[in-house]
């Protein structure tokens, strides 16, 4: 089953900063409205391939970004998907 990963941010400022930082990196991603099945402080999330999530997170943290959460969602169209929150060890 197809799935995507999502990164959420504490504020819009960090969402746009994340976009700006990642623009020069070789990862495909998209800034999208946060799916309602995910809880987030800011309305914009970054969607990426799950296999890139750890590397993207690393780059963002290296650039002093504040990140809120990480999620894996099944891509099942308009139906509400199962959400898995991903936790990283420090």
């Amino acid at each position, binding site marked *: 089953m197809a799935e995507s990963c999502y990164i959420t941010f*504490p*504020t819009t*400022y960090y969402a*746009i*900063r994340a976009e*700006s930082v990642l623009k020069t990196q070789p990862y495909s991603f998209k800034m999208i*409205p946060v799916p309602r099945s995910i809880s987030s*402080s800011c309305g*914009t999330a970054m969607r990426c391939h799950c296999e890139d999530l750890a590397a993207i997170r690393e780059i963002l943290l290296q650039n002093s970004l504040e990140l809120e959460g990480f999620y894996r969602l099944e891509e099942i169209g308009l139906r509400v998907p199962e959400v898995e929150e991903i936790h990283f060890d420090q």
Partner: protein
Amino acid sequence: MINDFEQAGNCNSNLYFDNAATSWPKPEAVYKAPEIQMRQGCGNPGRSGHTRTLEADRLVYRAREAVAGLFRVADPSRIIFALNATDALNIALKGCLGKGDHVLYTSMEHNSVLRPLGTLRRDGVITTTLIPCSETGFPDLDFLEEAYRADTRLLVINHASNVTGTIAPLQKMIQSAHRRGVMVLLDAAQTAGTIEIDTGALELDLLAFTGHKGLLGPTGTGGLYVKKGLNLKPLREGGTGSQSEIDLHPESMPERLEAGTLNNAGLAGLIEGLAFIEQTGIAAIREHEVEIRAYLYQQLQAISGIRLYGPADPGSASCIVSFTLDNTDCGEIGYILENNYGILCRTGLHCAPLAHKAIHTFPTGTVRLSPGYFTTRADIDYLTGALRDIAKLAAG
């Protein structure tokens, strides 16, 4: 509806010597960008999730990055946008001062500092000590050294006086305050964009700026730099587009100090003003202004009956010269300059009554001439020619 400005005609028919009030002309792109933003900016930053909202978010981000770049701020989230320098100063003063705090400020401060401090003092929140300034507008550093108390929390410094142009000895004053653990708020209304300000090197705590003077942007733009670790109490609370389920304002910067929709059209223009400054180079802008101020000062010195205020050395002043003409009302000089010569300047107290007391021109005030980056020597020749005529008339 007839636009009053269209009726009055183009400012090109005037010679503009009032850049300390608002800069004119602006770079061409500054006029165009707000219109493009309004026509194409169908999105409110931080609200909704559609692509036009993202475009608006990116615009605000670019503006923040550009301001951070100018002031050498490593983390753009520490720049918040406000209406103007007055607004930013209010956010800073009312956000950082609490019951029992003691505040130091100088005679050169503008009413945008004097009045918020006056209200906090009247309401019994703070106590204050005024640092006197010399006849040329320099703060008395010996007095400052003796003025600190155990409860002193903040020193407010006007980077350059809007009356005399006098540049405060920043480094010495900041070091003096920091030695005692006192924070510094810098009012850069007259210097942002024309004099280099490196917040990191200066270790500034708070810096208030306006967008429509030296930054060459539209009115209604400005903001505040807040040093990392300094958490101001918000003056305004409300919509941010984030954490909507909570009935308290978010604590993260920059949203912490920004409530409600920002001035996107104004910020679009501000970005262009900042781009012009970056392309031109702040050193080149300063060099031109120092030269033009020196020429103006020298020309005025040669006119009999004119008294000049502020430092003679153009390196110690922003691009302002204040003067009075013996036995003449300064308001009348301003009136004649505009009506007979098409020259625009500002006369009176310039919202800085204590500065005029320091330079002994209270309550009558001065005539303030503030050329800018676009002022030429020919403009100054025309102005000083007019003033020679007026001085002859006044001498009878």
